[in-house]
């Protein structure tokens, strides 16, 4: 009798696990498909950081512009004004006191990796990272996915997990939360997001 119960539990568990796996896959596929249709994004953001190196949490406000496949602008308006524009293999930094400076990503591996981190989470191509992250579905309405770096992934040395919260229509992200190994937390919330509307050319030109 006991054997039969275990057997039945196993019978029920197998499809259950299968359903869970395929649900994550389906959602990843939906997200990838939806975000694949996104050519441009512009919106406001609020970034809150709780970092061990700071006495108090840091909040910054700004605007974000993304034009696929290779343009990204991060413009901070408060508490200090600066911008970071990535275009193909070049990163241009601008701030009031220094003006604009450009860097080649090919010659700056540190910056290159940083840019790859930025662009990856905004890309929507998450299915390809299943080898490097355990992906968990936390909630379906709205979709919340949690990415835990696997041990072999160098990111696992710093990051504990990354949580992505999607908009109701699954078209884009509404929030990114990064939890680091040292318990630093970065929360990035997007507001007034406009998808596939034209981005002024002046955005990509440094001030």
């Amino acid at each position, binding site marked *: 009798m006991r054997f039969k119960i275990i057997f039945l539990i196993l019978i029920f568990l197998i499809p259950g696990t299968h359903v869970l796996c395929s649900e994550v896959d389906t959602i990843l596929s939906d997200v990838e498909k939806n975000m694949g249709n996104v050519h441009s994004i512009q919106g406001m953001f609020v*970034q809150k*950081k709780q*970092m*061990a*190196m*700071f*006495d*108090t949490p*840091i909040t*910054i406000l700004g605007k974000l512009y993304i034009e696929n496949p290779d343009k990204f602008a*991060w413009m*901070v308006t408060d508490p*200090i004004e*600066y911008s*970071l524009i990535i275009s193909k293999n070049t990163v241009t*930094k601008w*701030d009031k*006191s*220094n003006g604009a400076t450009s860097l080649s990503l*090919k*010659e*700056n*591996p*540190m910056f290159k*990796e*940083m*840019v*790859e*981190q*930025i662009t990856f*989470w905004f890309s929507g191509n998450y299915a*390809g*990272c299943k*080898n*490097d992250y355990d992906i968990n579905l936390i909630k379906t309405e709205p979709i919340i996915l949690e990415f835990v770096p696997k041990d*072999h992934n*160098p990111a696992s*040395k*710093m*990051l504990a997990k990354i949580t992505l919260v999607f908009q109701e229509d699954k078209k884009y992200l509404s929030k990114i939360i*990064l939890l*680091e190994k040292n318990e*630093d937390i*970065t929360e*990035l919330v997007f507001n007034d997001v406009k998808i596939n509307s034209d981005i002024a050319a002046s955005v990509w030109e440094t001030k």
Partner: protein
Amino acid sequence: MGNKVDMLKSKFDRLFDFIGKNKFILLLVFSLVIIGSFIRINSVNFVNDISIMLPDSPEINRSLNFINSSQMSDTIVFSITSMDPNKNLLSLTNGFANELKKVSQITKVITGVENLDISKIKTDLARGLPLLLSKQDYALFKDIEEETYLSEQVRQMFVMLTTPGSSLMQDSMGIDPFGWSNPLLKKLTTLSKSMGFDVELANTHFVDKTHQYALVIAKTSVTVTDADNSEKMLSTIDKITRLFPDLKIETICGHKHTVSNQNIIKRDIFVTTVIITLAFIGIMLFMFKTFDALSIFILPFFAIVIAVFISSFIFPALSFFMIGFAAVIAGFSVDYGIHLFAAWKTKGYESFKDTIKPVIIASLSTMGVFVSFFVSSVYGYKELAIFSILSIVVCVVLSIFFVPHFWREKGTLKKFNIPSDLSLSKSKLVLVVWGILFVLSMACLVKSNFTKATDITKFDGSEQSIFDSEAAFHNIWGGKKRPGVIVTPGADIERAWQDYELISDKLAPKMAGFNSLALLLPSQKKQKENLKTWKEFWTKDKISRVKDKFLKATTPYGFQSSFFDPFFVLLESNHLETTAQVPDGLKMFEPNFINHTDTYRLLSFFNDTKENTQIVASVLKDYPDSYIVSRRELSYLIGEKLILDLKNISLFAGCWIIGLIIFFLRKPKQIFLALLPVASSIPFVFLVLTIFSMDVTAIILITLIIILGLSLDYGVFISSAESVKKRDSVIIAASFSMITTIMGAGALLFASHPVMFSIGVTLVSGVTAAYLSAVFCIPAFQKVFK
């Protein structure tokens, strides 16, 4: 003198009669020797190693040994792309790599850089700053006590830390808030170019810039010259490749060249052997019209078998190039039998005996050419010389003493419609035509480009598909132009590193693209100096002042003061020790720069141009243990040595031939006529090479020396004929001789291997010119200049 000759002749007659009486016993012995030879040959180790065709010199051997023991020779690279866009390239690549790991001959498979942690590398570099930065780098600290500078740096830090993706900067920021390790990190990019391919990293995998191709690098225990094991390994790889129908996999390695060359040479040997056998049978049946001529034509084959048998005791392994030459040897060693057979058939035993002298002169002149190969430092030439001399000796001895006993007395020979005497007007016409061709040929000889003679790639006869896939590979991954390598040897790493560092310091400012681990990592001695300078610079007072000002600048941004404690510990640089070891963060570059067997060899890389090679050579004068290994340098060394070899061989062969001719012929006119085919054939080869747009290679030059010997044979035989009647039978023999030589060499025109083919073209054109000038020009000269 006359008595002596008579005595010799009678001795010859007695020996000849003795052999005749015991011919069947000797035939049995001969058959046993042949059977024994075949059994021995079956166990002979035949190799296809082009290095035996290269000159033997310490510098060349050093470069070749380095190449053979370096990463270049034991590496197989795979360029992989997915043919199905829906399939994940990197997962499939992992699957392919896992299958490769199961192959016993493959020792290591690399798909990318595992656990690449740039943050850790940066932190490691930052920790070592007091050891790594020299006085010249102290411009970094120029404004360190300026408050405006400090506040700007802190502001930049804040900007960086609030930028997305900044997590990986946090660790290093505490120890290196001013980014002093950034220039060192930038140098890492230069170091990564030492791999020789344009790779990027995606999910720890090597990919091309389009991310459409993945790169897998495998190391093998199979040496690049081991054709048999290379073939087995490539066959296994091919089976694995077929397990992944969704992937297009290009395999690039030296082993493919080895296997391809061996297969082509084997096929060429088979084709040429079949052609020459059929040709000889054809001549025997349709020209000699007698079965006893079979003995002449079969003799070279037996001579070759015996020569291989004897050579197998002299050399540990025999090269396929040498065996490939067998058809040529058969072609010209049959000549001696033909001359003797023609004399025997037309005029009988006495005429046969008269022909022995020119046969000996001709064979000695040909052997003399091969003897001259011993002057060369090329191992392959010596092997070829021994093999050829043995074949000729066996052929000549058997043609004179043994085979004639199986010939019937008289018979008819095919008459060639070649006049043995020309009218004066026709003689003049012949000389005019010869003169025009000679001038044209000389013009081509003078105009010929000898610079490509030293190009060792001309020895490579691999199938075109291999070159095509390599071209496709280089289009994707670059690396077509291999960098030059400077090798700095040393018994231990620290001693070698001191020279390595000095060479690097001198060369880095002089040439773009110079690459050395010493650019980043100083020797222990220099590290000690750097540490001392650091401590002198970072006095307690200075550290205290900087700390106060810096922490004051960080306050408005809310930084925790303790966060920067590691930085101030670094400035104090207590408990920091120098090391001869490559830091963990740089370990991945170690195999590219440090070659360790029983000694250490530290490697630097440079763009392999003429100018750079000169710069490097001038710097290395002060470091005699260090040396350059580069395609350009190797080509130059080989070229220099080959040209010297050729000069020595030509000089020896020339002296031998002229000495022999003077000794036997004595009369200046006869000497001139005997040498006429030689003087005609060599330039004519260049005319043919020009017409067919073929490059002059070292192989062609060495074949020309063989032509010297062959051409002389025609000159000796035809100029020796004292009467028009005698010349008639000599021309018949010379014509048969030319036909057989052309058949032997002509068979090589069907060869696919460039070395074999070029030998064929050179011999056919050279022998044709020699024959025509001997048969038509010698009588014409004799008629016009009586």
